[in-house]
């Protein structure tokens, strides 16, 4: 699994070099908005060939690519000719392409929807394209009908509308051996808090929502989160909430395999509300920012004394 994630990261990095508008959909799927990259990478065929070549060279893998005038049709096209496929739908060709597919390929309509469609006599995308909107509305409601009609004609039904750049950030680590040692779990959470705060600052974001993830020895996982009124400003604040979440949700007996922490609902840092009273963490926050600034300039490594392997006497 770890290897899989590593390869995924590598491929996503390669994809990110082709366009800044890259959105990872899952571990092995991503959407690339190639608008405006024609002069750089050429026509869709050329661009796709380049992407395939780079991935084959660097990761030794084949990929399937679908291209089209909108995200939905591109996604459907990518699944058309697996593996190592390349399917390009030219503008205007969406409806015909969809028509040529079996109803199972209608992305976003699962088994239940297909059954409901069959109930009203629709067994193919072609039939769906010709079905009366009123009939669909009666069975699936207004929103459902709209989705089916739009998707069947290969237009984007807005399945990706809610996208934002990055809504959360997380770190997690698997222990070498499952553990019940509170000290070492807490010390990891402290490290995570330092890492997360540093990332938050470097991306100029802020968050009021912190979560932890616990995976037990039997691979079952829980995630728990807390929300505060103002953004986290120091890693100490994040750590104390993370530690609280851990204590509230773990009995200290069940062995833990993996621990993680995350910031959610990320927002740009600029628009933050200022406070009347000092939180008491201002000095720590200043020190941490200074350390980070030094590190970024490559001027030495400053770290918490607790992280030193060989502690001075």
């Amino acid at each position, binding site marked *: 699994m770890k290897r899989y994630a590593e390869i995924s990261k590598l491929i996503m990095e390669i994809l990110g070099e082709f366009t800044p508008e890259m959105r990872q959909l899952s571990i092995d799927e991503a959407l690339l908005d190639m608008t405006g990259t024609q002069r750089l990478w050429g026509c869709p065929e050329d661009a796709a060939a380049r992407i395939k070549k780079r991935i084959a060279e660097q990761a030794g893998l084949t990929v399937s690519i679908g291209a089209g005038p909108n995200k939905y049709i591109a996604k459907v096209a990518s699944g058309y000719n697996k593996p190592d496929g390349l399917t390009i739908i030219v503008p205007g060709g969406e409806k015909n392409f969809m028509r040529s597919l079996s109803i199972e390929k209608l992305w976003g309509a699962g088994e239940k929807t297909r059954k409901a469609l069959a109930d009203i006599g629709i067994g193919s995308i072609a039939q769906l394209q010709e079905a009366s909107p009123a009939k669909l509305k009666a069975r699936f409601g207004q929103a459902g009908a709209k989705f089916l009609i739009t998707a069947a004609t290969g237009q984007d039904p807005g399945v990706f509308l809610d996208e934002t750049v990055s809504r959360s950030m997380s770190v997690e680590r698997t222990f070498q051996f499952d553990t019940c040692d509170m000290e070492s779990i807490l010390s990891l959470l402290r490290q995570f808090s330092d890492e997360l705060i540093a990332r938050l600052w470097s991306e100029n974001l802020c968050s009021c929502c912190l979560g932890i993830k616990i995976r037990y020895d039997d691979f079952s996982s829980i995630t728990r989160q807390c929300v*505060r*009124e*103002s953004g986290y400003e120091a890693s100490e604040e994040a750590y104390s909430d993370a530690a609280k979440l851990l204590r509230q949700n773990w009995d200290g007996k069940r062995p833990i395999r993996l621990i993680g922490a995350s910031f959610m609902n990320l*927002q740009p840092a*600029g*628009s*933050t*509300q*200022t*406070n*009347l*009273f000092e939180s008491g963490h201002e000095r720590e926050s200043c020190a941490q920012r200074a350390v980070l600034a030094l590190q970024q300039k490559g001027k030495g490594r400053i770290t918490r004394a607790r992280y030193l392997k060989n502690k001075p006497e």
Partner: protein
Amino acid sequence: MKFTCDKTSLLREISFAQEIIASKNALSIMSNVYLEATDSRLLIRATDVKVGFETSIPVSDVVPGAMTVFCDKLTGILSSLPEGDIGIEQDQGRAVLRPASKKARFQLKTLSGEKYPELPRAEEQSYFEMPAKEFRRMVVQTLFSVSTDETRYFMNGVFMEKSPEGSLIMVSTDGRRLAFIKNESAGSLPDFKPVIIPTKVLGIINKRLSDEGMLGIAITEKNIFFRFNAYQISSVLIEGQFPNYQKVIPQNQKTKFSAKKEDMMEALKRVSIFVEQKSNRTFFSLSVGSLILSSEETEIGAAREEIACDYEGEDTTFALNYRYIEEPLRVLDSETITVEFSEPSRAITLRPEPASDYFHIVMPMQID
């Protein structure tokens, strides 16, 4: 136990009791209202452990006794009945309700009155009185600024203290804005230690207290007591250290502007439609004689509205959470309001014009 009374007056008190009761669990005695009939009065008690409520109403046809019944259902029955008398009788673990106006009979399971928690009491001599209207005015100015963040429990209530000169002070804050009122018309007050009063009891007082008459208040180590009309209401106090509010009240604001309250509220209402929902950040740009309220420009659109204001300083812009302006504006009781400020990164002060015994402080948001 048995009594007969007017349904409307019983309903009024039982629905008051229902507001206090937090539990909806029919099996818990904490969901019940305590009823005790003595001579010609019915004593009614309710509590959520923190807030206690007690009152009494005249009843007739009494067989003395006490019981507790599920308040939610009792309220339901009473509010669905037409006007008229109702007879209530305890019969083997049940309360039987017989309205005079209908051929109906309702049975409600009862739990023994003996198991009902005791309400805390204050000694008679510890009560002092102040005009109900004055207390209510103070609650109205402060109640909305309280923090709802439970991790900062010491800000979950309104701070009340007696100033060295003997006036009554109330302060509330959520850490970003603060409300302050110092009442000199409270009359002569006994000395008491500063307290933090939870919002629940103040909300109830604010709703039920009329502007006429006096309000009795008593403060003990752990509780505060209020007494008005036939009501006795108590609440536990919030233990903890209220922040040093005096330190954050700006002493000398450099400049100020005034505007019509109505103009500002109306403009805010419209501009806020476009304000970014998460942060509520709204921009206030001042130039001589004019205030422009605007939202951020987003993909959806933007809003901008100019209103007249009395301002003679340099052009300046600050950003504020519009709710922190809208809420105090609703309670400022003057036609014109004044906003005092020093610089965009410092707290602003909102006051009625002419100035009164209260003000509101709001911390700005970062501009970029």
